[in-house]
């Protein structure tokens, strides 16, 4: 099993507030890895380190350790951030399509990369929307505003937008937190499809979701990685008493 992201002894701080303490794990390629844990445990922060979107928060920095993708430390100062983020896509908790048409939302990442050829754009947009299981619902109104879509559709549009870049890794920060159960189900089905092509890392509050769709699960608590292992094992036979307490619902 090759690993897509290697996290080695990472500590992270916002100014003087230490949020991650010495986290190490290998995220396997072409699988779904779920991060679970109570709010504020650092799971979103860790996820946001993978594409360095934390850079724009003043005072946020990795204080120790390294995060490697294909053996390259992504925190090197000479990293091409734009290219990194093209390779590592991200879907956010609150679906956030741009106030543009459905088509332009998906074409956005290509346009910023300098791709403006109509035929190429058309093809990639169609493929991305198909991969996100949205094509049939929107093919007749590609040029209508993205805000006309339902919440679940908007989130799938955001997924389509992220995979239009053909990334290696897809980061998802509680992608279903703002969705109803039916829309959540659709996204989960989509995840099962997507993991064939992409490595997926998903942060979730919903433990049932983690058991339903992830291959591996990491339980984090107070900025530390408590346990990391195959999902079934972590939920049914946790090694750490804290994990057990959390997954059985006695705390958290």
């Amino acid at each position, binding site marked *: 099993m090759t690993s897509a992201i290697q996290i080695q002894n990472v500590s992270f701080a916002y100014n003087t507030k230490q949020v991650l303490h010495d986290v190490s794990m290998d995220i396997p390629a072409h699988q779904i890895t779920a991060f679970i844990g109570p709010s504020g445990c650092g799971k979103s922060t860790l996820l946001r380190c993978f*594409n360095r*979107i934390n850079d*724009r928060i*003043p005072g946020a920095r990795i204080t120790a350790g390294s995060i490697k993708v294909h053996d390259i430390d992504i925190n090197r100062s000479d990293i091409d951030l*734009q*290219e990194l*983020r*093209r390779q590592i*896509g*991200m879907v*956010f908790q*609150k679906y*956030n*399509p*741009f*106030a543009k048409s459905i088509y332009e939302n998906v074409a*956005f*990442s290509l*346009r*910023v*990369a300098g791709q403006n050829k109509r035929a190429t754009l058309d093809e990639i947009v169609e493929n991305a929307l198909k991969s996100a299981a949205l094509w049939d619902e929107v093919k007749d109104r590609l040029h209508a*505003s993205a*805000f006309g879509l339902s919440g679940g559709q908007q989130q799938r549009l*955001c997924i389509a*937008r*992220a995979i239009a*870049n053909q990334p290696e890794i897809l980061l998802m920060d509680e992608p279903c937190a703002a969705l109803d159960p039916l829309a959540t189900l659709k996204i989960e089905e989509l995840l099962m499809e997507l993991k064939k092509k992409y490595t997926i890392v998903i942060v979730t509050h919903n433990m049932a979701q983690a058991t339903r769709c992830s291959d591996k699960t990491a339980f984090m608590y107070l900025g530390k990685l408590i346990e990391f292992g195959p999902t079934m094992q972590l939920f049914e036979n946790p090694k750490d008493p804290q994990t057990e307490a959390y997954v059985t619902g006695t705390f958290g």
Partner: protein
Amino acid sequence: MFDPKKLIRKGLPKGHFKDAAVRSLLAGVTYLVVIIAALLFGKIIVDGAPVLFKAEAPFVDFEFLTAKNETLHVFDDALGNRHQLPAAAYSAYLDKHPGEGIFNEQTFSYSGGGIAGPIVGTALLTIGSMILALFFGICAAIYLSEYAKQSPFIHAVRLAILNLAGIPSIVFGLFGFSVFVLAVPIITSTPADRSLLTFPLFFGNYFVSFQGWNSSLMAGCATLACMILPVIITASEESLRAVPQGFRDASLAMGATRWQTIRKCVLPFSLPGILTSSLLAITRVAGETAPIMFTAAVAAKDDLPWQGLKSPFDLLSSQVQALPYHIYTLAARIPSSEYTQRAQYGSVFVFLVLVAFLSAGSMILRSKLRAKLKW
């Protein structure tokens, strides 16, 4: 013990008279304001509208809008008929009727002809200063909201900009006079004697001379732009901040650079807000007298701004008439009489109509943009 009978009140509700008194006091104050405004506008419309509108087709006296401003000559001819003629028509009359007597002649400065010069001048000042102010204002707002770290220094900068908005316009006028009229550098072949600092350029044929732009259209535009910059910066920054953070996150996460993010995902969505703020600024720029008094405006000018120019640069470096200054001149610097009323009320009325059009136009533009951009 609960007594259901207590639920039914006897007589008037508690505090009935107090409530009624407060209510009528508040209503009275509100309607007083409305009445004052109605009287003000009513007077201007009643006295000013007849100047601009006529009973017969085409119903608008275009001559008042398109004719140059001239001195008004009022006189009786030999038959005792009273004439009111602007200067050019007056000399034509004299040529046409040589030797006939002219009696009881009176002249009224600035009261004859139309107000084309002031209208065009105000338009040029407004356009020029808005271009300057929007450019500088949006640049500063983008820096403050998107790039600058939120340090105490930036906080102080923001506070300073806010405070600028409260400075009286006459102070901006004096500032503009001392800086733009007297001190800013120009490139010239013949530096003036009063130049503060001169150094040669190229091979000595031209000089950079800190001698100011004189009283001119560009000095006026620059001064007006300074006056409204704080308003535009503050409001632009607010509307930039109103763009959801998610847009920026999503754009960056898809591999856009910071500037691409701002250009494609932030600026387009904040434009309606920026335009809204500039709407207020436009009417303020068009209406201010004090900042242009020393920097751009001239009471009398024979040519329209684009007439008699040797180069486009001459347009920027010549003085202009302006509506608010023209109104000030008519109101305060000439003796008022029945013959000056046409020019006085007409100018004010036209001014009001112009401002109303500007506001209405910007509001329509804004609502159209709003309808297009929603989140």
